[in-house]
C-alpha cells in the first residue's frame, strides 16, 4: 500500500500570554492512499490543530512546531518534510489546496460572502494549474456538477448566501476537490448539518475517494460517523493519541479507558442500556494534569498514572495504546522491530 503521509511525534505548542498551551503533544500516524483515517476526540483534544499543522495554516508567531515530523510523499519526487517548509513559501503553496486539500467545519464562515462561489473555486484552480480563466470556469462548473449542485452553470455565479447549508458544504467540497488532491482533510464536515444532508455529504466524499484513490483524514467528535467511514482510528485526548487501532477493534475491543468511556457515553440506537458517562469534564488548556492526561477522570487510575505519562504500548501490528494497564501485554515498539 502507498503511504502518502507519515506524522511522527508531532508537537505543536501555542505560546500565549497566559503560558504555553501544548495543543498537540506527540501525535503519530500513517496515512495510506485510498484509506480513511478517523481522528476522534472531544473539544480541546488537538484534532483540529493537528490538521492545521499539517496544512501549515498556523501563524508561526503564535504556534510553534516544537518537535516531530510530517512527511508527505508526493506522486513523484522525493518526500517533503512539511515541518521544515516555509509556511509562506512557494513549496507549501504548491501542496496546500492542490495535493492536500481541506474541508472546514463551518461552511458559512469559511466561504467569502463577497465573492461568487465560482470565483472562489476558480481562485484555487488558477493558483495551482496553468489554465486560462475560461478553462478554470469550466472546471469549476464541472466540480459543482460532480458534488451534485443542480444547474451548476447558473449556480456558479451565485453568492454563498444564495446557497442552503448543505449546498454550501457541497461548494466547499467542490473547492477542495477542484485540483484532484491526493489527501483530503475533512474537519467536522457534517457537524452543522441535518442527518439527511450528512448522509449525502459522506456518500459524496466516499464516492470521490474511491474514484480517485484519495486518502482521507476524517476529523470528528461523532463516533457514529467514524464507525461508518473510517478504516483506522486514532483517539485523542488533551493533545495526545491515547489509542490507535483498526475501526472494528476500536468499537469491539476498546483498550484505553478513555475510548471505553466515550463508547459507554454514546447513545447507540437499539442498545437500550443506561449511558455510563465519563465523570468530570475535559480540563482547560492551562489545567493540564500531571502524568497521564486522563488520570483525573479515569475509573481505573493507579498511583503511577498521576506521576508518569505512559508511552505508547504496541498491542498488535496496527494497534497502540498509551495506558499503563497494558505495559505487560505490550510487544516491543514498532520502531525497534
Amino acid at each position, binding site marked *: 500500500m502507498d503511504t502518502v503521509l507519515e506524522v511522527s511525534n508531532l508537537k505543536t505548542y501555542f505560546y500565549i500570554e497566559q503560558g504555553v498551551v501544548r495543543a498537540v503533544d506527540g501525535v503519530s500516524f500513517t496515512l495510506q492512499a485510498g484509506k480513511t483515517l478517523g481522528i476522534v476526540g*472531544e473539544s480541546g483534544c488537538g484534532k483540529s490543530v493537528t490538521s492545521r499543522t499539517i496544512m501549515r495554516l498556523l501563524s508561526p508567531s503564535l504556534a510553534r512546531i516544537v518537535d516531530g515530523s510530517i512527511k508527505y510523499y508526493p506522486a513523484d519526487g522525493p518526500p517533503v518534510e512539511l515541518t521544515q517548509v516555509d509556511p509562506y513559501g512557494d513549496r507549501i503553496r504548491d501542496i496546500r489546496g492542490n495535493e492536500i486539500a481541506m474541508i472546514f467545519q463551518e461552511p458559512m464562515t469559511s466561504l467569502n460572502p463577497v465573492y461568487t462561489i465560482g470565483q472562489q473555486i476558480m481562485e484555487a484552480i488558477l493558483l495551482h494549474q496553468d489554465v486560462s480563466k475560461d478553462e478554470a470556469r469550466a472546471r469549476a462548473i464541472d466540480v459543482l456538477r460532480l458534488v451534485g449542485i443542480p444547474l451548476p452553470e447558473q449556480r456558479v455565479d451565485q453568492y454563498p448566501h444564495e446557497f442552503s447549508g448543505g449546498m454550501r458544504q457541497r461548494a466547499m467540497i467542490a473547492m477542495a476537490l477542484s485540483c484532484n488532491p491526493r489527501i483530503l482533510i475533512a474537519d467536522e464536515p457534517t457537524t452543522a448539518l441535518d442527518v439527511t444532508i450528512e448522509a449525502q455529504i459522506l456518500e459524496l466524499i466516499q464516492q470521490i475517494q474511491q474514484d480517485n484513490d484519495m486518502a482521507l483524514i476524517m476529523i470528528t467528535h*461523532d463516533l457514529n460517523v467514524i464507525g*461508518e*467511514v473510517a478504516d483506522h482510528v486514532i483517539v485523542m485526548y488533551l493533545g495526545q493519541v491515547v489509542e490507535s487501532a483498526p475501526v472494528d477493534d476500536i468499537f469491539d475491543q476498546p483498550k484505553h479507558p478513555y475510548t471505553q468511556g466515550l463508547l459507554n457515553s454514546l*447513545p447507540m*440506537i*437499539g442498545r437500550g442500556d443506561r449511558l455510563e458517562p465519563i465523570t468530570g469534564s*475535559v480540563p482547560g488548556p492551562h489545567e493540564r494534569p500531571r502524568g497521564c492526561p486522563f488520570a483525573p477522570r479515569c475509573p481505573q487510575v493507579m498511583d503511577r498514572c498521576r506521576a508518569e505519562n505512559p508511552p505508547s504500548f504496541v498491542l498488535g501490528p496496527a494497534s497502540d495504546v498509551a495506558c499503563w494497564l497494558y505495559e505487560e501485554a505490550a510487544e516491543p515498539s514498532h520502531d525497534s522491530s
Partner: protein
Amino acid sequence: MTPVEAAGPDAILKIRDLRLHFPVKAGLLKKTVGYVKAVDGISFDVYAGETVGLVGESGSGKTTIGRCIVRLYKPTTGSMHFRTGAGLVDIAQLDKRELQPIRRDIQMLFQDPNSSLNARMRVGDIIAEPLEIHAIGTADERRARVEDLLEHVGLGAEMYNRYPHQLSGGQRQRVGVARALSIEPRLVICDEPVSALDVSVQAQVLNLLADLQEELGLTYVFIAHDLSVVEYISDRVMVMYLGKLMETAPTRKIFERPAHPYTEALLNSIPKRVRGGHRKRFVLTGDIPSPVNPPAGCVFHTRCQYAKDICKTETPPLRTLPKDPYTSVACHLVDELSLSPYYTAAERADLEPDRA
C-alpha cells in the same frame, strides 16, 4: 378534522390543529406577500410523566412547536389545552397576564448554554430569578432552594457565586436545568439541550434529565435532531416534516418498524457501522422545500421514492393504524409499503452477537 389518539385522563397537554404562519412582508408598504407555514395543522397529546421526542430536519417546525407551547410565540389558530388544578385551560390565545400562573408549570431548557445564561449574573441569581418573578418564598428560602437545586443537578452549593464564564459547557447546561426546575414545573420543553455538548458531558446531562424526571415526575417534550439521543431518552417519537406530523409511534416501534417513508429516510441517513467495510447508503436527495410554498398534496412527495399520483394532489391525513392504536401515520401508501428499519436483525446480530 384530524383524528388523534384518544385523549386519556392523564393527558396534560392536548394540542389540536395548531398552526403558526409567519407573514412574509415585502415592498415599500410592507405588504404581506405570503406566509411561512412553520407549523401547519398539528394535533397531539402529551401524557403526564412521559418523554415525547420531536424530530425532523431544520425547517420542519419542531422548535416552533416548542416555542408555541411555552408561549414565546402565539399560534395563529388551533388550541393547546393544558391541565391545571382547575381543569383543562386553552393557553393558545391567553395574554401575558393570564399566562403568568401557567408559566410556573411549563418551562424551557435551551440549546446553547453559552447564550441562554446572562453573563453578568452570578449562577445563584440566575437560578433564583424565576423564583423572584413568581414571588416564591423569602430571600433566605430562595437561597436555600437554589443551593438545594445546585446540589441536585450535581454542581454543589459552592457554585452559587460563580459567573457562567467560569463554568464548562456541561456545568452551564446544568445551571440551565436548575433554572428550569427552580419553580417546580410539570412540563419541560427541552430544545436541543445536549447538542452543544461533548459526548461524555452529553451523557451526563441526559442521565441527569432522566433521573430528575423519575424523581420529580416531570413530563418532557424533547426536541433534537440527533436521533440516537432521541431514541435514548424518549418513550414516544413524533416525526415532523415541513410543519406537519408524518408519524408518531412508540420509540422502539419507530426504529424497528418505521411506517412513513420519511421516517425510513431519516433512519437510513444516520451513520452506522457495518462489519467488514462500508455500507451502501440510502440517500435522500435534495433539500427540504421552502415552507413559504410547500408542495401540494403530501408535503414529502417531492423527495419520496415511493410517491404515486395521489400523493401529488391529496394531502394524506394523520391516521391511527387499525392494528396498532399507538401508531399514527400520514401517508396514502401506509398499507402497501414495507420499509427498512435502522438496523436489520442480521446486521444487529453480526455487530453484537451476544445481544441477538
